[in-house]
């Protein structure tokens, strides 16, 4: 009986092992003195890690992908200095439902910290960890579908960022260290899900942030040391304005006038809660 069970177990295991064919793919480009790079990353499904790479390489991507459903994309345009990296569906695409351990499409994208970067991320059903600290991000566009995304500025952005535009569908999005992003403007548009906007960081410049949430929970982590002003347009949303002073249609921190760095937050929410956590 035990032998039968063992044989049966081995057969089941063999079936699982053969259920998915993963294929490794690698691409990179040497840095030949380029000063800027437009990087577009389109990643349909799986796990994605984006981080700063080596200065002598413009970019590098290492992939392990399901060759039955996806094809790798890596295309650099010499004229525009833009690269398209990622995975696109091969015909039917979709997510293969086998087991959690087998949904293991993995991608690691490393971008040069030596060039000015215009970054455009389009993510599908993706578990993404994006580390932008230490890069030179000029522009950031992030579109996510049903994903879980953590975007971090662990170190200050090496250059001034004009705009960070993030749009999320049914997603769990955490934007960490926005105070290091040095973005003049941050636009966040969320459908439904849970969103964390963490404004920790060095705050070397002021910033204007516009947040539009349809449904879901929004958590704002705000530093006390900067001048804060929140303008709200809400329908069925709750908001706890502890520590803020109401002035006209806005909530303002007591030090708003005296601060050299300002965060102007424009919130539009339909349904859901807005939580405020203070960073000391």
């Amino acid at each position, binding site marked *: 009986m035990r032998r039968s069970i063992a044989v*049966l177990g081995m057969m089941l295991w063999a079936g699982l092992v053969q259920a998915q064919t993963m*294929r490794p*793919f690698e691409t990179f480009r040497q840095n030949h003195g380029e000063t800027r790079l437009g990087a577009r990353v389109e990643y349909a499904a799986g796990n994605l890690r984006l981080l700063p790479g080596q200065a002598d390489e413009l970019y590098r991507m290492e992939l392990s992908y399901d060759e039955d459903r996806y094809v790798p994309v890596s295309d650099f345009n010499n004229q525009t200095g833009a690269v398209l990296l990622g995975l696109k569906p091969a015909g039917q695409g979709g997510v293969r439902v086998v087991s959690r351990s087998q949904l293991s499409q993995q991608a690691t994208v490393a971008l040069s910290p030596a060039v000015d970067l215009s970054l455009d991320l389009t993510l599908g059903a993706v578990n993404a960890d994006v580390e932008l600290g230490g890069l030179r991000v000029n522009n950031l566009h992030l579109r996510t579908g049903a994903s879980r995304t953590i975007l971090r500025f662990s170190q200050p952005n090496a250059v001034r960022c004009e705009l960070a535009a993030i749009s999320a569908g049914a997603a769990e999005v955490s934007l960490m260290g926005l105070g290091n992003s040095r973005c003049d403007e941050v636009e966040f548009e969320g459908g439904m899900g849970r969103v964390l906007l963490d404004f920790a960081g060095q705050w070397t410049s002021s910033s204007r942030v516009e947040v539009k949430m349809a449904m879901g929970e929004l958590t704002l982590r705000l530093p006390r040391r900067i001048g804060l002003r929140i303008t709200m347009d809400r329908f069925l949303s709750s908001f706890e304005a502890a520590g803020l002073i109401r002035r006209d249609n806005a909530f303002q921190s007591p030090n708003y006038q005296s601060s050299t760095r300002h965060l102007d937050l424009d919130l539009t929410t339909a349904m859901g809660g807005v939580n405020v956590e203070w960073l000391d």
Partner: protein
Amino acid sequence: MSAYKRLLGILALLTLAGGHPLRAEIPVDGITSRAADLVDHMLGLITGFTQPERRHQPQSQVRPQEIATGGTTVDLSNLSQPTLIEDRLGSALNQSSGQLRITIPGGGARRGDFSLGSSETRSGHLLVLDGTADIYGHLTGNLVTIRGDVVVHPGGVVGGDVLTLGGRVRDEGGEIGGEVRTLRSTTLLSPATRPEPAPLSAWQSVLRRTAGVLGVFLALTLLGFGLVMFGRQNLEIVSDTVSHSFGRAFVTGLLGQILLLPTFGMLVVGLILSVAGILLLPFAIAVFALLVVIGVVGGYLAVAHAMGETYTRRRMAMGTLVGSPNSYRYLLVGLVALSSLWVAWALFGWVPIAGSIVWGAAFFASWLLGTAGFGAALLSRAGIKENFAGRLLPPEALTDEYLWATPQFGVPAGRKPGTRTPSRGL
């Protein structure tokens, strides 16, 4: 003793045949292939190699040579879609019979190791097949290697992109002007290096199929035991329906198979037309598929149960002492009986013609009994209705004592000479 000798004889025959490749091979069906692959892998582990590994070993012994132009044209000017290039190269290599010919517009192709000297400049794109490309000099175009590495040495320059299919790129201080792409594995093989698929030996063939049959047997046994444990009443009613109304069950099963698709179509159309039913469509499809699977598998298990019960009761009638005549035993005996033809196929399927005949017989018998089982499941509404189960007597009379040796309603047990034992369709 004679059986033992016969077995030894068969084993000796198999051993003799085992060393020779079998050309008249019956393809292994999908059900057994996974288990068979597992057996292959295990054999590979024991013998120290597996076929896939052997297939992907680099061919370093290939004599370096220029590949003649002609044959299929493959454009290497755009390597941004490596899998597309791989497909094109694959079709080009597959079309080459005999001498390999390939045309690279604005470039050339080579086979075997290739080295570009430090004082050399080569213009155009380059394809290197089955060898390493060592770049010391200047290559102006794109470089593609199949089953070989690219090494760019200090001072070496590749002006365009680099793509390796089944190899690696080693940048040892050279310059690569374009993009580097690496697909570390490839299924591409040049015609000369493409190995003949190794024919299976008789032993391998027997092992593969036996593993497959054993796997199916175990799966059905486990399912059957689960069914006995949780749905014994239903299983027995379906089983009795098979026993007592075999012909009717078979015809019903046949009709059921024919009407399966139309019924499914009507269900889908009906739900779509009823507008509100559209919401139920995915659920209904899943339930329908589940019911069909339950009907077929459950019916097949009921047939096994009926066969096992009949056999066991016959043995008991002949005075053999049977340890525990219960549904578990019936099912196991029945499944062994049903598997016997497939076991015969597993053992002798490699024999030309006879193997095909055994396979056909096993398939036909399985289909016949599966159809009867499916029909019995339909007739008895999955073991809810006893109309065709031959249970005309009240349940309290359906004891083993009654069924076997006792005439109806309490007359003392005893087999009178000349009287017929109630047979339950034996």
